[in-house]
């Protein structure tokens, strides 16, 4: 059974983002939203934690990126931008959702 993990806090504020990734199995997905979108920014020293997570698909919520002025060109390669409709679709596609708050 595969999980959609959600992360809504900055990786510099809390350990939630790194703890989430450490528990994400192959075949699972991680969605960064709210302040969690900073985890998808390729400029930070956290970026290697994202790129190093084999077999995990990463998503970021576009509206939260835009709100924070983070351009899509600044995202880590392979992180897919989705909107709220995409968020709902992901929650349906995966068997369950685990929130790392």
């Amino acid at each position: 059974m595969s999980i959609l993990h959600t992360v809504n806090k900055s990786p510099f504020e809390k350990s939630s983002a790194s703890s989430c990734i450490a528990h994400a199995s192959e075949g699972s997905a991680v969605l960064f939203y709210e302040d969690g979108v900073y985890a998808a920014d390729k400029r930070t020293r956290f970026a290697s934690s994202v790129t190093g997570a084999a077999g995990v698909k990463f998503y970021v919520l576009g509206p939260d990126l835009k709100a924070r002025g983070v351009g899509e060109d600044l995202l880590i390669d392979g992180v897919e931008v989705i909107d709220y409709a995409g968020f709902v679709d992901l929650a349906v596609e995966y068997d369950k959702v685990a929130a790392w708050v």
Partner: protein
Amino acid sequence: MKFAIQINEGPYQHQASDSAYLFTKTALEKGHEVFRVFFYHDGVGNSTRLTTPPQDDRHIVNRWAALAEKYDLDMVVCVAAAQRRGIADDGEAERNGKDATNIHPRFRISGLGQLIEAAVQADRLMVFGD
């Protein structure tokens, strides 16, 4: 798909209630069902009818109430968390000797069992917190 929504934070202080609202609204517009929206911890603060946010910003409580009205949502506030944080309906005011109530009529106060029931009955539990 049937969703259960859990909100752990109060309005404005955290983005949790906003994110939950936008997710819930989108899910409903896509034709999904929302079994219950359950407010826990400081999330019970989303149910007071006494907020007066600035006119040029979203009205979180009213927005939830309007969504609930449109889709006949069951919006439940945990009784223990509500008592701790001073959210009261007529029943609570009478039972606990309070001289006022403050709950918005679109929300109802009930027990934690409602959260468990929602998690078991729904296909997906979405938790929005901090």
